[in-house]
């Protein structure tokens, strides 16, 4: 074993109480770093999953219709400065099929699914409820919103004459699987009505949605809402959730359509997530600073305690660079040992959390995001911190005047 390793290990062993203390400190730091990160990531992933459970990452709609004011002269002076906003009728996206194909080829976009949605009434006997009719291609829509997972009864089947209802709507209308419901629409000045067999009931997780939502096939919705062959919106998913707004802006500029990302429609949620992220970063930063200060303080004390030994080693021919490496190595060894223990501690904390933090029904409160690279990053970070912390004491040790150190 080289000189630096022999001396570093022996110095650490000699001051075993100090060594244990600082290894424990590093381990605690690494464990807190990993656990907090996994906890916050899990919390955020859970919040986003719940929020986006019923939403596409990006929604493309036709551009809003705008009433233009009349201009009276060449200078552009408005003859009628006040213009009433135009009522937005249900429209299809122009040429949505080629657009859909183009979107599917756009980098960062994973899936595209057409949808026709509009208002209507669900009628059964004397009861009628205001509803939102959503016409979809179930296979493709399932890739956007995992609608199959939300099924609480029956099956998700929306062939001709079939519909899937939100749970509360089914309750309000007193409908079960196999029952029939009449859907009435008045879109684009045409009143349409048809009867459907209920094949499935879904729980979308939000009462208001459960009270209004009716899923039917895409073609059925086109007929009900008088949009033959049309699509009132295209739903998109993207590879990186947090790229959604950038891609949405890009698409809006390119197509001239109304494009909204989940980040725009959930600004408050995003602000909360960002605040959480900043808080987590601050915690990580403080933990790293504490680890650096802890390792540095112990090594500084060690240099002071071992002045004479350092002097003797220098007198015996050890160059300053070797002495410096002895202390850098101590920092790295302490950090590496601490990070290995810290990883174990973090794993234990996670297991305990998953075991104890449960909902009333026994299901986990939320899943932690446990990524192997998080352990690697935390360990590497701890070693870097250990080395950084050791730089000043190591330089101090290397700069010791041997004659003076021996005289101490």
């Amino acid at each position: 074993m080289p000189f630096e390793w022999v001396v570093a290990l022996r110095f650490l062993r000699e001051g075993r109480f100090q060594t244990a203390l600082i290894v424990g400190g590093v381990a605690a730091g690494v464990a807190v770093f990993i656990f907090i990160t996994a906890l916050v990531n899990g919390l955020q992933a859970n919040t986003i999953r719940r929020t986006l459970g019923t939403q596409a990452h990006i929604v493309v709609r036709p551009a809003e219709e705008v009433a233009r004011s009349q201009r009276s002269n060449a200078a552009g002076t408005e003859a009628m400065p006040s213009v009433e906003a135009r009522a937005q009728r249900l429209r299809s996206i122009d040429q949505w099929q080629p657009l859909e194909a183009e979107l599917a080829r756009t980098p960062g976009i994973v899936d595209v699914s057409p949808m026709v949605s509009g208002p209507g009434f669900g009628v059964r006997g004397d009861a009628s409820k205001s509803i939102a009719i959503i016409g979809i291609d179930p296979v493709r829509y399932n890739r956007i919103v995992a609608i199959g997972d939300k099924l609480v009864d029956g099956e998700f089947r929306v062939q001709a004459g079939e519909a899937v209802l939100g749970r509360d709507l089914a309750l309000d209308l007193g409908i079960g699987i196999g029952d029939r419901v009449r859907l009435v629409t008045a879109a684009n000045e045409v009143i349409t009505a048809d009867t459907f067999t209920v094949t499935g009931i879904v729980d979308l997780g939000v009462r208001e949605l459960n009270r209004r939502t009716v899923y039917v096939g895409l073609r059925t919705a086109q007929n009900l809402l008088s949009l033959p062959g049309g699509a009132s919106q295209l739903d998109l998913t993207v590879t990186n959730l947090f790229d959604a707004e950038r891609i949405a802006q890009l698409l809006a500029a390119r197509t001239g359509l109304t494009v909204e990302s989940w980040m725009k429609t959930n600004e408050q949620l995003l602000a909360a997530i960002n605040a959480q992220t900043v808080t987590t970063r601050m915690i990580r930063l403080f933990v790293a600073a504490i680890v650096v200060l802890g390792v540095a303080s112990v090594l500084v004390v060690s240099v002071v305690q071992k002045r004479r030994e350092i002097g003797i080693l220098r007198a015996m021919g050890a160059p300053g660079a070797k002495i410096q490496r002895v202390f850098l190595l101590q920092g790295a060894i302490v950090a590496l040992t601490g990070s290995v223990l810290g990883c174990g501690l973090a794993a234990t904390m996670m297991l305990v959390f998953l075991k104890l933090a449960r909902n009333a029904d026994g299901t986990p409160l939320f899943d932690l995001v446990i990524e192997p690279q998080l352990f690697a990053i935390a360990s590497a970070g701890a070693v870097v911190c250990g080395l950084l912390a050791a730089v000043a004491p190591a330089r101090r040790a290397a700069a010791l005047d041997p004659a003076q150190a021996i005289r101490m």
Partner: protein
Amino acid sequence: MVASLIELAGICKSYGLGTEVEVEVLHGIGLALAEGEFAALIGPSGSGKSTLLNLIGLLEPPTAGSYTILGRETSALTDDEITALRGRTIGFVFQFHHLLPAFTATENVLLPGLIADGPITPARRESARQLLRDVGLAERLDYPPRKLSGGQQQRVAIARALALSSPLVLADEPTGNLDTHAADEIFALMRRFNRERGTAFLIVTHDPRLARRCDRIIELVDGRIASDRANDAVATPSA
């Protein structure tokens, strides 16, 4: 003629250079030590003995003058060259032995080799153990310093100073902390290595009884060499 091991000419050493409290401790020291010499450096406290020993040991640079060791002028050497030269050429024995408490007796003796030649080989380990047997510590090879008596610790320090077969050992009051009996034993040990291995010793001592047993006595007073004489009272052993 015996070759010169070290040569000092016009060596001065001052502390607090450029300040109001500048003090010159050594004034124009001229001194040569031949290979295999066994010399005592005596003088009252504050006469500059330890400073001179530090200069000879390359632990401190002189303020002025020339210092040549094994034919190499040291003033032009870099810090790393000085350190390497010191490690290979000079062994140290201090009054308080200065063993490293974290290492056993054998490991302490192995340290100079570990620094100079890299990882320890079984042959070097055996050589270190033999050296400890030679200083009479066959039963204490793997003892940590705290479990050794003062005399035993000083024996380990001597073995360590001789580990790289350095041609010169500088001993700063090596018996100053020992009782008379132990002091005699340590002195005898150094004398034995001087005669058997031809290692030169320069021993700082306050003890006139021990100084009288050296071949040469150099007396330092107020930073100057007051006398430097061969000690005819010591019989030169037959080869």
